[in-house]
């Protein structure tokens, strides 16, 4: 896992739910990550899927990823190239799904200091997000979550645990 990530911001608000991140009508019909990426954030920001660049960072308000447990809401963003998600808070299942797919997430208030299009830098070792408006700090992940992230997600992590 990279310890420092710099990327361009896509800024969103509070309570962005998994239905607008990845619509339920596709949950059983699309199975390939790249197909999912084409519909990422379709019902929230139709420009996103067309314009997102590898390494871009989503910065949002409270309760990002509330709603359904659907993992495609993480996979579609990862496949679209999103490098990290920074939010004031995450819904619980979404948080776990990010760790399990090795999509780095940061819980802090950086949304206060950014606009869409800004460049920001996340330093995971230092626990800081540097924005044009200032530096925001965040607590480290638990050792359990860090281990899964560092192994590249839950499947490689479990394989390692089982000695496979």
């Amino acid at each position, binding site marked *: 896992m990279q310890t420092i990530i710099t990327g361009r911001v896509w800024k969103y608000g509070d309570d962005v739910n998994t*239905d*607008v991140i990845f619509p339920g009508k596709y949950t059983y019909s699309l199975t390939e990550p790249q197909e999912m990426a084409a519909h990422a954030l379709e019902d929230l920001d139709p420009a996103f899927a067309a314009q997102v660049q590898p390494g871009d960072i989503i910065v949002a308000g409270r309760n990002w990823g509330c*709603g359904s447990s659907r993992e495609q809401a993480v996979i579609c963003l990862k496949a679209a190239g999103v490098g990290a998600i920074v939010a004031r808070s995450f*819904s619980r299942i979404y948080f776990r799904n990010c760790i399990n797919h090795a999509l780095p997430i940061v819980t802090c208030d950086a949304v206060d200091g950014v606009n869409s299009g800004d460049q920001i830098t996340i330093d995971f070792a230092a626990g800081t997000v540097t924005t044009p408006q200032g530096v925001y700090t965040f607590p480290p992940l638990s050792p359990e979550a860090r281990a899964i992230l560092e192994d590249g997600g*839950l*499947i490689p992590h479990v394989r390692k645990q*089982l000695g496979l």
Partner: protein
Amino acid sequence: MSAHTFVEKVLARQAGRELSPGEIITVRPDRLLTHDNTADIARKFRKIGVRRVADPTMNVIVLDHVAPAANETYAANHRAIREFVAEQGIPAFYDVGAGICHQVLPEHGHAWPGAIIVGSDSHTPTYGAFGAFAAGIGRTEAAAVMATGSIWLRVPPSIKITIHGHLPPRVTPKDVILHIIGEIGADGATYQAVEFGGETVSAMSVAGRMVLANMAAEMGAKNAVIAPDEKTLAWLAPRLAAHDERSLAQLWAEVRPDDGASYARELHFDVSELPPQIAKPHTVDNVVPVTDVLGTKIDQALLGTCTNGRLEDLRIAAEILRGRHVHPGVRLLVLPASREVLLDALAEGLIRDLVAAGATLLNPGCGPCLGAHEGAMAPGEVTLSTANRNFKGRMGSQGAFIYLGSPATVAASALRGEISDPRAV
């Protein structure tokens, strides 16, 4: 020993030591629920590289989300699941028509006081109505549970919600939980456990308590629990071969919250004068009294889902619609939550009353709630639903509008063709 909440006690039994919020422990769940997403979970399971599931009796698989299959893709998905069930020798498999997983699991003895249940569905907390610890997880995580038989969980802080007062006529548990979500917000309980109690909850049926636990997910809760009482134990006992009411009471006694346990928040609600509640588009915490939205025209009315597809829900709708007819501009869809509910409703004549009033009866299952079949919406259309989510785009078109209300409000509104007060019909 210090005093502990339910979630601290239920998880401590497996940890073998006292636990505090924030600690991370590994547990072996008693049950793992998966549904139509089992085909994808099986693919992830194979990617891990294990041949056999850790314990086939841990798995419960229910086909409910797009069931019967809407097209060839869904059909192939279901077939892959049936093959996986046969290959792994999983006994608890409920095929198309059994009902919605959150009704089927308790009906078939897969939920009990003190059980630890994880499920690849966000409404898994429903089983807290039976004194179980139940939490939603993602697909990859479900695959890892299949492979290892275990999962890590963080011990959450708890919120205690006490509900007081006698519910007015035609005001239901759904109105109570919508009101609470409106008050504390869609993230009011994120990553926390909720304990519901109070005299209003004690007076509720088992079905009503399931509504509270089911919708705790909509305030972000990890799990929710309601203390089982004689009603719960009488409902459960015939469904659990190894238990009677006395042994179930003993299971609860081992995990019931201690007096003096420490809570992150303690909230009190008085519902004795609560009017029927409506969640307006497009968030569940956008809640108003029904009187604020009277007259909103509806195209479709949905009675069912894992929130409100139970016998008492069909009963109150039938009471309102019996001998009358749904408004000509409205499609009323009725989906009993399970085969058992459907059979009971048939025996009581409720289905006859509803269909005679113009309802379209659909098979037990999730139906149109997730927008994949059986009543998807066109742009500009309005549905009033007894479901638990009204997110933009959820029922098909992102240009459609979903309002949430109780079964009584849905029936009254189907009758009038517009959102109506069930106390006035």
